């Protein structure tokens, strides 16, 4: 088991390193540098800024300095906003995005599993058909489009829920729902098919022959086996939620990290863009790693 963990850590570190190196060299492969014509700077000021940011040094030296800074958690200063550092931006805005993401994940997992259970228990009935239809239609709907749809109907047309900013619980509803939709239907589909598979196994019959009620059999024998499979699914879903948060935060004007990322793109704030790309990349890879590990630990067959 330990060997497996070490292997996975090695892969994680290699991937991280590859991403860090690629982003660095890609940015430096661009003609010019961040301080050329787009910013309204005079030539002397631009030269001074280059010196200050160490951009006049040979590339390899810059790379080493970059890695050193990264190791200390320094991702550089924002180029548009005086006095703001990337790590500072992350520290202040990420908690909001994290909250949004976790709320969406929670909704997705509970709703998805519940739908899966209902679909299994009522096989052949209208519930199952309805859920199947819902999941088929839902899985193709990008969270960005759903976000705007919900904003239009619940906000503009029917004026039921708030559609911007962050603070009250009501304000979290539409954004979380937009993000949670695809994960919910994915989980529902996947969980249901696994549950049906599991229920056809002989050990379910044996459990019933021991006198266990249908409910007990479902909860103690079927669910643990099916839930284990859902765990693998969660890694990619988190990636989906994270990426979706960029646009959802933009649509609902939520002051999270995603908003910063999107605006840094239009602002040409390269340090922020690069820093946040790295942050998100590392976050995603790390969470996939964690879920892998979690599943490995929980499944008796693997260890």
């Amino acid at each position, binding site marked *: 088991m330990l060997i497996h963990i070490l292997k996975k850590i090695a*892969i*994680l570190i*290699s*991937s991280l390193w*590859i*991403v860090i190196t690629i*982003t660095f060299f*890609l*940015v430096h492969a*661009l003609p010019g540098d961040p301080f050329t014509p787009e910013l309204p700077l005079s030539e002397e000021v631009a030269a001074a800024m280059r010196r200050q940011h160490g951009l006049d040094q040979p590339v390899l030296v810059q790379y080493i300095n970059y890695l050193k800074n990264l190791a200390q958690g320094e991702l550089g200063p924002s180029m548009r906003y005086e006095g703001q550092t990337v790590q500072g931006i992350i520290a202040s805005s990420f908690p909001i995005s994290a909250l949004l993401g976790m709320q969406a994940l929670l909704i997705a997992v509970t709703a998805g599993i519940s739908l899966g259970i209902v679909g299994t228990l009522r096989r052949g009935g209208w519930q199952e058909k309805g859920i199947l239809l819902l999941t*088929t*239609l839902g*899985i*193709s*709907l*990008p969270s*960005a*489009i759903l976000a*705007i*749809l919900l*904003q*239009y109907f619940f906000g*503009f047309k029917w004026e039921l829920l708030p559609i911007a900013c962050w603070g009250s619980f009501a304000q979290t509803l539409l954004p979380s729902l937009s993000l949670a939709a695809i994960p919910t239907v994915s989980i529902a589909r996947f969980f249901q098919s696994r549950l049906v598979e599991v229920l056809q196994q002989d050990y379910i019959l044996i459990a019933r022959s021991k006198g266990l009620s249908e409910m007990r059999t479902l909860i103690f024998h079927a669910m643990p086996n099916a839930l284990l499979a859902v765990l693998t699914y969660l890694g990619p879903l988190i*990636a989906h939620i994270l*990426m979706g948060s*960029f*646009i959802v935060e*933009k*649509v609902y004007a939520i002051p999270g990290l995603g908003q910063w990322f*999107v605006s840094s*793109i*239009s602002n040409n704030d390269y340090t922020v*863009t*690069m820093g946040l*790309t790295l942050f*998100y*990349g590392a976050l*995603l*890879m790390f969470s*996939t*790693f964690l879920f892998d590990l979690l599943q490995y630990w929980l499944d008796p067959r693997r260890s």
Partner: protein
Amino acid sequence: MKKIKIGAVLFLLITLTALCAPLLSPHLYHETHLAIKNTAPSTLFLFGTDELGRDLFVRICFGVRISLLISLAASGIDLIIGLTYGTLAALSGRRIQILLGRLLEILATVPNLLLATFLTILFGCGIRTIIIALSITGWIGMARMVRAHIWQLQTEEFMIAATSLGASRPHLLRYHLLPHLFDSILVTVSLTIPSSIFAEAFLSFLGLGVQAPLASLGSMANEGIVSLRYYPWRFFFPAGTIYLLILSLNLLADGLQERRERC
């Protein structure tokens, strides 16, 4: 079977309309009528007009073409690179196998969409950059699938039988492996295309999509967001088309997957 039919029909419907309708429509793609800008859908303008008075229906038809161009190109490149890499990784000598395999595992953990976004940010947004950015990360899934599938097929009896009868490597590859791989490849490709459409829409919503005067479905939808309150059709028609395209392809992919499992 039903799914394949519905998906295929829907997809063909949209594609054919996109290809033929502009030929039949009285409106031109770039024809602007500033006097009638931002009008709601009517019999004259099926989908309404945009902020420059251009017919939205025709624009969407062209948008479909561009979105499909991008996704088909990206998926095609993914197919070629992925198939090659996967085959090599599965069939080469021991050391190369391990090397390629490790590399694949590491690359697979890199978040696709994020990297594609980053590449587009850096190298500017044009059709070519977007296609390249999408392909650079997309081939990994195909490579993994191909590698795993070939490994699995190698242990199947018909392969062992053919080898023991003296079949050579290229012969094995062409007449025995590829036909079996075909089904899986078909399913994977039918999944990469909608995900490329999705990715292109994603990039557009970030402002990184195709630039004017060209318009993809994603960029049109993105422009429509601003005027959502007053001219909702400018968002809903492009967005709806994106949705239907993705839906039809997903249905197709699902149906193909189910049919494959049944054999």
